[in-house]
């Protein structure tokens, strides 16, 4: 038995929404990172689903790129978070408002 593509897309939409809402409402930088990862993986799932549905390998190829970019982004992002924590003893995003106009 195989599920139709719509299920996967629905799941991806739900995961994406959880990620987006989490990003907007949470204050902890690490949690916000996780939410971004959720959104990226929801997007990946969509790519893979469409690749299956349309019989096009391109969607799966893009997923690899997204994974690589996401990994790199996490490396840099976590580096910033750790450095920031050392200097300011906080991981709360709202405390980092020195770019306020």
């Amino acid at each position, binding site marked *: 038995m195989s599920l139709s593509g719509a299920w996967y897309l629905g799941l991806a939409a739900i995961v994406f929404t959880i990620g*987006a809402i989490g*990003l*907007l*409402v949470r*204050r902890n930088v690490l949690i*916000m990172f996780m939410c971004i990862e959720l959104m990226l993986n929801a997007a990946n799932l969509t790519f893979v689903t469409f690749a299956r549905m349309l019989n096009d390998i391109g969607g799966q190829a893009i997923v690899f790129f997204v994974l690589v970019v996401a990994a790199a982004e996490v490396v840099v992002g976590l580096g910033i978070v750790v450095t920031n924590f050392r200097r300011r003893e906080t991981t709360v*995003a*709202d405390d*980092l*408002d*020195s*770019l*306020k*106009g």
Partner: protein
Amino acid sequence: MVHLGYLMLLLPLAGFLFLVTFGRRIGDPVAGWIGTVAVGGAFVVACIVLAGLLGLPDNGRVVVDNYFTWFSSGGLTVPVGTLVDPLSMTMCMFITFVSALIHLYSIGYMKNDRDYSKFFIYLNLFVFSMLLLVLSDNLLLTFVGWEGVGVCSYWLVSFWFQRESAASAGKKAFIYNRIGDAGFLLAIFLIFERTGTIQYESGPGGGIFGQLHHLDGGAGLAAVLLLFMAAAGKSAQIPLFNWLPDAMEGPTPVSALIHAATMVTAGVYLLCRMNPLLHVTATGSEIIATIGAVTAFTAATIACAQQDIKKVLAFSTVSQIGYMILAVGTGAYIAAVFLMVAHAFFKGLLFLGAGSVIHGLEDEQDLKRMGALRRYMKWTTVTFTIGFLAIAGIPPLSGFWAKGDVLDNTFAHFKVLWVLGLITAVLTAYYMSRLEILAFGGKERFDKVGPQGEPALHAPHEPPWVMRAPLVILSFFAFFAGVLDLPWVHTDNLSSFLAPVFAGTLYNDHLGAGPEWALALADIAAAFAGVIIAWWLWRGDEVYQPKLEPAFLQRVWYWDDFYDTIIGRPAQRLATFCAWVIDVRIIDGAVNGTAELAKATGNAARKLQTGYARNYALGIAIGMALIIAFMLSRTWWG
């Protein structure tokens, strides 16, 4: 020999370039000698060219040399060329001669000046420009020389620019000249537009003088009046004469060379050069003659009331040039040139004599603090007296013949102006005698009115020989220049030499021997009347008591106040208005308003930057939602 005109130009130019490069290094007095030699060389070349010109037949004495084309554009071709003819050579002879003597004099006068070599740089450049003005064969090159002498005059008037009065006198001279120069430019435009050429008498179609039929009626009159405007600026005629007395702020050799002997006669030269054009319209000549006579009279009255020795001579120069302009307006060009030559000698002499007095009295120019200098400065006294007798018109000195020539022609042509001219002759004799008596006669006044009443440090002393020699040489010529053009010699004199230049335009007075003798006696009577009145009024005063010096004359007929009221102060008010209303309110308002607008926009926009990452993320989410909504709407309803 007659084709050496370019060399006359190149020598002072070479002197100028050499002094610009090395002047400061070689300094006093070698720089002065080099400048003098350069101009003296030009004088030698002028003699050679003159000899060559005299070797040509009477009616073939016009030699045009074209060296290269300056530029050509459309129908306008401007060659760089020289026009050697009796008129230009007469000018060149006395310009180079007097200039060389004044260079020599300056070696002594400018000794120990901070900018010794700079002075000779300017003087050499001035002589080059003046010769270019005179020798050029077209109007535009003449204009280049005209501007050249103007700028040298500016530099030399404000040579001691540390003095506020010298700096502003230079500016005044320059601005008055610019007004005249505008007239010159417009005249060149008009003449070119009508005749299609700017060369005097060479080139296709016989130059301007060959195309004069295109300049008839109103255009001709306009061209004449515009040229006269130029001449009035340069030659200090009403209404542009006020700059010349102020120009006396310059060193005295400059006053002698530029503001008496040479540059200020450039206007007279220009009108003489353009004599065929002047002949086209009688009205123009009448206006010129009237202004000349009125200027001569006005300036002579003012000279009677001046107490600065150089100011008296300055107004006297304006007055004498008025005579020349009167002669030009009468059509008696030869009389004008004759007076110009004689005037260069005696006025150059008088200024150098005044310079010698100023030098001897340690920079004292006030006649009130002179007197009895005859006991201290014998050379200066004798030479100055010769100059004074010449300008006063005492026979047989040069001034008598030259001024007589002008007055005879005026008598035959305009009786009213002749009366004015004769009164001016009385005034001339009067103010010069007053000057002579105040400076050299009477009692000593110089150490009695010292600044703090202390006795003077030095007794008045004679200048060194480099300054005395020019005085002696010039006094010789001031005495004998009359033989250039004696009325009863009709060959081999200035008249017959110059006649071909003015063929067909020269006014002939047709006076018989009887009226000529009567007029000569009138001139003599006028001269002696002036001298006697002055002697009777001024002899033997212990202290200076002003006589016949109303404020009206001392303040130059209120000409300066008049210009100040109608031009100066309104212009100043306009400038103030522009500075404090237009500039501050309107221009600065626009600039500052733009800045304020940008600032206000920025202040409004910065509120968007909260610094909270979630707000930016929300912005992204909303933007994405909008984009998706847009795409969906296109899919469903598109």
